[in-house]
């Protein structure tokens, strides 16, 4: 049920390593923030859109889908800036926002979850001297992903139960039993982990 946003593909952007893409994203982000000429910004927006939809092969539909949640913000910018400053500023800021989000979304769509996790693991092992334990963090992430469907089921179960009693609008009556069940399950799970020697995981290896 929990799938990443990664979209398989065989373009060369998919083939780039995750750190390269993240570095590129960071650099492009800085460039976007620094640019103050509308014409340069338009050019950059068009090229990022082209890279997103054609070069990476994600198509125009994906490009539109990742832009749609921003439209309400773009509208707000246009209204506020037209009123307060100028049409030029409004266009510049809107394009900045849209392009930044495109670049970041491009990285997410073309990079496997496992590659992103590797970057995270590398970052965590740098922090190891500060007491960060990469094995524990990897376990925490895996556990959370595993628990999301279970929590979802519990909340939905309780919701159904209360609906059968005519309490579908009583949010308090819905969340209290759900949360109590979550806490009970947490106790059972942590007992199970302790019984399997969790407290000493990753101590020496």
């Amino acid at each position, binding site marked *: 049920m929990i799938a990443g946003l990664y979209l398989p593909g065989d373009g060369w952007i998919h083939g780039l390593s995750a750190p390269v893409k993240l570095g590129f994203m960071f650099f492009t982000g800085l460039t976007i923030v620094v640019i103050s000429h509308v014409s340069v910004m338009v050019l950059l927006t068009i090229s990022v859109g082209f890279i997103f939809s054609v070069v990476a092969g994600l198509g125009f539909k994906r490009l539109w889908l990742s832009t749609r949640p921003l439209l309400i913000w773009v509208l707000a910018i246009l209204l506020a800036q037209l009123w307060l400053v100028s049409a030029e500023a409004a266009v510049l800021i809107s394009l900045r926002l849209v392009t930044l*989000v495109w670049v970041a979304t491009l990285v997410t769509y073309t990079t496997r979850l496992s590659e992103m996790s590797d970057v995270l693991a590398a970052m965590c092992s740098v922090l190891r001297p500060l007491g960060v334990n990469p094995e524990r963090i990897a376990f925490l*992430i895996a556990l959370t992903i595993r*628990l999301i469907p279970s929590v979802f089921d519990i909340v939905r179960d309780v919701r159904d139960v209360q609906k059968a009693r005519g309490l579908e609008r009583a949010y308090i009556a819905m969340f209290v039993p759900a949360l*109590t069940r979550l806490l009970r399950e947490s106790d059972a799970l942590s007992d199970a982990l302790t019984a399997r020697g969790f407290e000493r995981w990753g101590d020496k290896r």
Partner: protein
Amino acid sequence: MSAKDTVLVAMFAALTAALGLLPPIPVPFVPVPVTGQTLGIMLSGCVIGARRAAFAMLLLLVLLALGLPLLSGGRGGLGVFVGPSAGYLIAWPLAAYCIGAFVSRFGASIGVLFLANCVGGIGLVYVVGVPIMALVLDLSVGNAALAGSVFLPGDLIKAGVASAVAAAVLRAYPTQKNTQA
């Protein structure tokens, strides 16, 4: 981190994610859909204590950055960290910590819980979120605050629900086991 800490952190990160997957709850007189995720922050802060709640929210942000669609409406990925609502996300761990610290200092009566949720879950989130929204949209902070205030009625309702739920849960399930450490 003990096994118990680990499981509670993962469980409440998962809860906050699952609350985003549930269909938004329509509330009369509120123009924007009320999603459960703010509820997740408040409940974590109230129920599992400051440190664990902050870790749970941080973990959720890491999962989002890795590319999991865990925000309401199936949003996620690196894009959400450069959009106008990035500041609200960054505020989540701080908010959860603040709520937890407030509750462990002043007790877990429903009044304190409500105050903690308003200060941490609403006040702090807005204090971080609104200036960043202003920065991204290049608005004045005042105008951004005006735009952000459409969420205020919904957030107040959620603070009320979270406080009532947390008070009942803390009574139903031994407190010292949850809020210590």
